[in-house]
C-alpha cells in the first residue's frame, strides 16, 4: 500500500513536470548575449543620430537657395530652423528603414541646435555651433549625440581672386574630430533669385572633399572668382558644410562680406 502511494506521488510529480514543460517559457542557464545585443542596438541608434546630424548639414547647405530671396534675409534663426527640419527628416527616414530591418521603432525625443556667429571688420558669419539629440526606441534603447563646432572666418584679398579661410574645429563629447568632409558653394542673389556657384565639392556627403588633420583643426580655404569678389556691394553668401564621418559632428557656415574683396 505504501509503495502504491509512493508511485502515485512520483507519477504526480512527473505529470506536473510535464505540464510545466509545456506551459512555462524556456529559461536559459549560463551567459547570454543580452549585453552585447543591447550595446549593438544602442550603437546602431546612436549612429542613426550621428548620420542624421552629418547629412542634415549637407542638406541644409544644399537647400539654402530655397530661403534666399534677398541679400539680407538669412538670419541665424533661419539656419537653425532649416537644420532642425532636415535633421528631423533624415532621422525619420533612417529610423523608418531601421524599423523595417530590426523591428524596432525609434523616435527623436530631443533636438537642440545652437547657432553662433560673429561680425568682423567688413563681414559677418554664423554657423551651427552645437547639436544635442536624444532618441528612444521601443526596445528600451536610448541613445544621444552631443557635438559642437567652433568656426572662425577670415576674408582675404588674393589679388585677382578673393579668398575665404575658415578655421573649423569639430568636436564630439569634447573630443576633436580629425577626419572631416566638406564642401563649399557661393549663392548669389540677383533680383530676388539665388544662383549657385559651386566652389569645392558638392553638398552631398558622397561627393564632398575628405580632409584629415591630426590636430583636429581644419583650415578650409576657398577662392572667390573675380566676377564676385570685385563686387563693391556684394550680393552673395559663401556657404560651407563640414561634417565628420560617422562621429555626429557637423556645421553649416554662412558668411557674407559687405565690400569688395579683391583687386586694388
Amino acid at each position, binding site marked *: 500500500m505504501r509503495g502504491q502511494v509512493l508511485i502515485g506521488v512520483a507519477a504526480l510529480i*512527473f505529470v506536473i513536470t510535464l505540464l510545466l514543460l509545456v506551459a512555462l517559457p524556456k529559461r536559459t542557464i549560463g551567459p547570454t548575449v543580452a549585453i*552585447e545585443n543591447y550595446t549593438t542596438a544602442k550603437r546602431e541608434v546612436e549612429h542613426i543620430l550621428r548620420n542624421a546630424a552629418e547629412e542634415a548639414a549637407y542638406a541644409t547647405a544644399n537647400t539654402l537657395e530655397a530661403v534666399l530671396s534677398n541679400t539680407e534675409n538669412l538670419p541665424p534663426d533661419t539656419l537653425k530652423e532649416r537644420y532642425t527640419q532636415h535633421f528631423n527628416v533624415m532621422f525619420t527616414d533612417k529610423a523608418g528603414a531601421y524599423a523595417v530591418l530590426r523591428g524596432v521603432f525609434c523616435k527623436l525625443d530631443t533636438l537642440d541646435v545652437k547657432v553662433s556667429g560673429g561680425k568682423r571688420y567688413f563681414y559677418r558669419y554664423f554657423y551651427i555651433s552645437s547639436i544635442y539629440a536624444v532618441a528612444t526606441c521601443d526596445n528600451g534603447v536610448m541613445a544621444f549625440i552631443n557635438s559642437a563646432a567652433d568656426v572662425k572666418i577670415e576674408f582675404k584679398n588674393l589679388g585677382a581672386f578673393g579668398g575665404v579661410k575658415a578655421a573649423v574645429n569639430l568636436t564630439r563629447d569634447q573630443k576633436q574630430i580629425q577626419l572631416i568632409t566638406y564642401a563649399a558653394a557661393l549663392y548669389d542673389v540677383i533680383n530676388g533669385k539665388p544662383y549657385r556657384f559651386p566652389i569645392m565639392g558638392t553638398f552631398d556627403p558622397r561627393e564632398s572633399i575628405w580632409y584629415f588633420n591630426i590636430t583636429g583643426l581644419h583650415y578650409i580655404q576657398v577662392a572667390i572668382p573675380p566676377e564676385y569678389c570685385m563686387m563693391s556691394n556684394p550680393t552673395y553668401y559663401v556657404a560651407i558644410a563640414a561634417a565628420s564621418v560617422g562621429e555626429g559632428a557637423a556645421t553649416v557656415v554662412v558668411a557674407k562680406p559687405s565690400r569688395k574683396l579683391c583687386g586694388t
Partner: protein
Amino acid sequence: MRGQAALLEAALLVVATVLTFVVAQHLFKVQYVQSDYALKINAERILIHWADTGVAYAVAYGVTGSGDPQYAKAALETLLPPNVGYNLTVVSLTRGVIYTIARGYDPARSDGATLILMRGEGRIISLRLSR
C-alpha cells in the same frame, strides 16, 4: 509474491524519478547548443569595436562609397587567430551585396552578428565566425 511486487514498485519509482529529472532538464534550455556562443559574442564585440572606432565606415563605405574589402581583411585578420574562419558580407540596402570576403569559413560550425549603419542609403555588415 509480495517481495516481487515491492521490487516492481521500487523499480517504477526509480523510473518515474529519473524521467522527472530528464524532463526537468528541458525546462532550463541552454541557448546556442548547436552554434557557438563564443563565436557570436566575439563577432558582436568586433562589430561594436568597429562602430566605436569608425572602422565600420571604412569597411562598409570606404572613400569610394563601395566599401573597402582590403581594409576589412586587414582589420579582421589582426583580430582573429588563424584557426578562426570568417565570412564578412557588406550589403547595401538599395544595391544588394557590395562584397564578401572569407577565410577558412565553415558555415556548419559558425555563428555571427550584424551591424546596421544608416549613412546614405544604409549598409548591413554581417560578420560570421567559424572554428
